[in-house]
C-alpha cells in the first residue's frame, strides 16, 4: 500500500449551472464553482492556498482566479490537457500537500465549451477562416481529420470490425446513461432516449452518430483536497484518495495510428499497479466513472481494466443492464458527459464523490442529508454498495448490511469504493480510486 493512501480526502465539490450560452467569462464561472466547493466543504476561501487547473487554451488560469477571489497562493500552476487531467491533478495535489507546497489544493476546470472555444469546431464562427496545420496536424488536417469525432470514429470503426458488433452496443451506452441523467436534476439532457432514437440520430462522423457524442457545454467544476485530519471538522462525510494513475502513455503517443493495435489501451500495462497501489481487488469497486467523450470509449476501458476480455466490452455491458445504476458495474451515474455535462471528465469524479458520501443530489427531498428512497421511478440516483445489489438489471433489494459504515439507518449501504478511468484514447490513461 502506498504511503499516501487514505491520507488525503476530497472534502468539497461544486459547480456552476450547466449552460449552452453562459454569457459569462470562464473566470466568472471558475470563481463560482470554487466558492460552491468551499461552501460544500465548510471551508473559508482564506483557508485555500493551493490552486491548480487544466485547460486547452480555452480557460482562465489560477493567477486570475487568485486575483478575483483574493487568495494568497502558495501554489498555483496550470497544466495543458483535457481528458485524464482531473485524475492526474488529484495525484499531483496529494504529493504537493504532503511535501508542504500547500496546505490544501483546489482543482478546477472552467470552459465555455459551447459559446466559446468548441471542441468540435474551434471558434463560434465555425469554418470560414484559414486553419493552420502544424506539427502532427500537417498529416491529419489536410486529410480531413479535425475535431474529436474524427479521431474517435477511427477507433469505433476498428472496434466494430475487429469484434463483429453492430453499433447498437454504442446505443446501449447512450440510453443507459440517459436514464441515469433523468435521475439528476442538474443534468442538461433528461428527455427520454430509446435505442431507436439512437439508431435514427443523424450521422456526425460514421460510424458515430449525434447520440454517440458528448455535449459541448459552458460550465465550471471544482473540488478541494485536504489532509484527512481536516475532514472530521468539515461539513461532508470524508472521501479518501486511495491511489491512481496519471497519466500513463502507450508507445508512440504522439501518433498512435501506427501502433500495431490502436485499440490496445495502455491500461493493460498499468492496471495491476493501479489496483495494487490502491490495495483493492477490481471486484471491490462499487461504482465507476468511465470517460465517455463518445459512447464506444467506456467499452475500451472495461476491457483495459480487466473487467472483461479484449473485444468483450460490447457483450459485457449486457445491453446496458450491467452498467446501469442497479447493475453490477454502474457507469457514469450522473448521466456522464453524454447527458449530464462536459468538463473533460471532472464531473465524473465529483459525481462519485457525492455517491460515496451517500449524498447524490437527486430528486429525493432528503438527499442533502443522505436520505434516499432508492426508488428509481421516484428519481432516486443514489447507488448502493455492490454487495447490497442483486443481479444486473433488477432493482435494489434490501439486503443484510454487513458493515456498520455510514449509510442509511436501514436498507442498503452506500457505495464504498469508486474507480474513475479518465482518458479519451487508448494511448493514455489516468485513474483514481476513492473510498468513503
Amino acid at each position, binding site marked *: 500500500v502506498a504511503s499516501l493512501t487514505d491520507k488525503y480526502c476530497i472534502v468539497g465539490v461544486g459547480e456552476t449551472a450547466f449552460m*449552452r*450560452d453562459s454569457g459569462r467569462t470562464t473566470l466568472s464561472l471558475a470563481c463560482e464553482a470554487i466558492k460552491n466547493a468551499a461552501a460544500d466543504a465548510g471551508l473559508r476561501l482564506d483557508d485555500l492556498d493551493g490552486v491548480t487547473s487544466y485547460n486547452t487554451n480555452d480557460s482562465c488560469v489560477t493567477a486570475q482566479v487568485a486575483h478575483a477571489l483574493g487568495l494568497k497562493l502558495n501554489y498555483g500552476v496550470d497544466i495543458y490537457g483535457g481528458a485524464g487531467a482531473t485524475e492526474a491533478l488529484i495525484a499531483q495535489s496529494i504529493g504537493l500537500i504532503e511535501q508542504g507546497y500547500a496546505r490544501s489544493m483546489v482543482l478546477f476546470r472552467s470552459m465555455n465549451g*459551447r459559446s466559446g472555444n468548441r471542441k*468540435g*469546431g*474551434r471558434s*463560434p464562427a*465555425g*469554418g*470560414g*477562416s*484559414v*486553419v*493552420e*496545420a*502544424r*506539427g*502532427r496536424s*500537417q*498529416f*491529419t*488536417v*489536410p*486529410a*480531413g*481529420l*479535425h*475535431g474529436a*469525432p*474524427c479521431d474517435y*470514429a*477511427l*477507433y469505433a*470503426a*476498428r472496434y*466494430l*470490425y475487429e469484434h463483429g458488433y*453492430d*453499433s447498437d452496443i454504442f446505443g446501449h451506452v447512450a440510453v443507459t446513461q440517459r436514464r441515469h441523467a433523468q435521475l439528476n436534476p442538474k443534468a442538461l439532457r433528461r428527455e427520454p432516449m430509446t435505442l431507436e432514437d439512437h*439508431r*435514427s*440520430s*443523424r*450521422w*456526425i*462522423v*460514421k*460510424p*458515430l*452518430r449525434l447520440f454517440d457524442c458528448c455535449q459541448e457545454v459552458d460550465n465550471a467544476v471544482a473540488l478541494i483536497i485536504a489532509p484527512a485530519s481536516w475532514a472530521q471538522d468539515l461539513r461532508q462525510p470524508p472521501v479518501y484518495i486511495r491511489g491512481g494513475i496519471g497519466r500513463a502513455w502507450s508507445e*508512440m503517443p504522439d*501518433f498512435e*495510428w*501506427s501502433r*500495431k493495435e*490502436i485499440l490496445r489501451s495502455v491500461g493493460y500495462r498499468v492496471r495491476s499497479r493501479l489496483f495494487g497501489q490502491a490495495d483493492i481487488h477490481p471486484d471491490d469497486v462499487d461504482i465507476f466513472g468511465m470517460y465517455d467523450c463518445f459512447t464506444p470509449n467506456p467499452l475500451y476501458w472495461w476491457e483495459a481494466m480487466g473487467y472483461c476480455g479484449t473485444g468483450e466490452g460490447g457483450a459485457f455491458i449486457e445491453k446496458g443492464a450491467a452498467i446501469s445504476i442497479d447493475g453490477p458495474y454502474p457507469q457514469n451515474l450522473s448521466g456522464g458527459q453524454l447527458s449530464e455535462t462536459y468538463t473533460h471528465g471532472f464531473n465524473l469524479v465529483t459525481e462519485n464523490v457525492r455517491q460515496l458520501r451517500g449524498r447524490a443530489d437527486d430528486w429525493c427531498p432528503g438527499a442533502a442529508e443522505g436520505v434516499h428512497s432508492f426508488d428509481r421511478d421516484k428519481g432516486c440516483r443514489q447507488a448502493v454498495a455492490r454487495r447490497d445489489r442483486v443481479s444486473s438489471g433488477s432493482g435494489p433489494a434490501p439486503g443484510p448490511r454487513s458493515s456498520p459504515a455510514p449509510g442509511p439507518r436501514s436498507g442498503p449501504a452506500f457505495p464504498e469504493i469508486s474507480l474513475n478511468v479518465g482518458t479519451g484514447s487508448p494511448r493514455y490513461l489516468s485513474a483514481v480510486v476513492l473510498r468513503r
Partner: protein
Amino acid sequence: MTAAQPPAAGSIDYGLISVVPDPDTEQWWAATAAGRLLVRQCDACGFRFFPPSPTCIRCRSTSLGWFESGGRGVVYSYETVVQPTLAAFAAAVPYSTALVELEDCANDDGTPVRIFGTVLGERGAEDEIGIGAIVEVVFELMGPSGLMIPRFRVVETPAGTWRITGHAANGPAGTLPKRL
C-alpha cells in the same frame, strides 16, 4: 479570412488550410511535391516510421534517411465525415478518410507504417472504401500553397472488406454545424 471562391461541390477547398512544414518535415513535403511518398528510415537500425521525427523512435539515433514507398496499402480503419468542422471540407461532405497501412514499409518487428488520406470518389466512396480494401496513393495539389497532399484511390476490395452500416439517413450535405 480569404477571398477564396466558393469551392465546387464535392471538392476540398485547400485554400482554407495552411500547412506549415517545419525542419523535421520539410523534406517530406518537398518529396510529395515531386510525386514521391517518403517515410523515415533510420540509418542506424533500419526502422521505418511516420510521421517524421527528429530521432529514430526505436533506437534514438539522429542519423536518419528516407525510404520511398510505392504508396500502396491496406485500409486499417476509416470513417466517413458527414458533419464537417472545417470550412475547407464544407462542400466535400460526405467524404471518407482512410488510415492506410503501407504494404512495403512494415518493420521486421511487425510495427506498421500508416498514413492518412482522403479517399477519391463521389460521396465518400462509401460503396468502395472499407477496412481491408487495397488502395494506392494519388497526389493532389493543395491550392495556392504549391504543396501536394497524398490521397488514396481504391484499387481492390477483397472478399471480407468491412464497411460501416447503419440505420440513419444522412443530413443534407455541406452544412456546417448549426449553433443552438
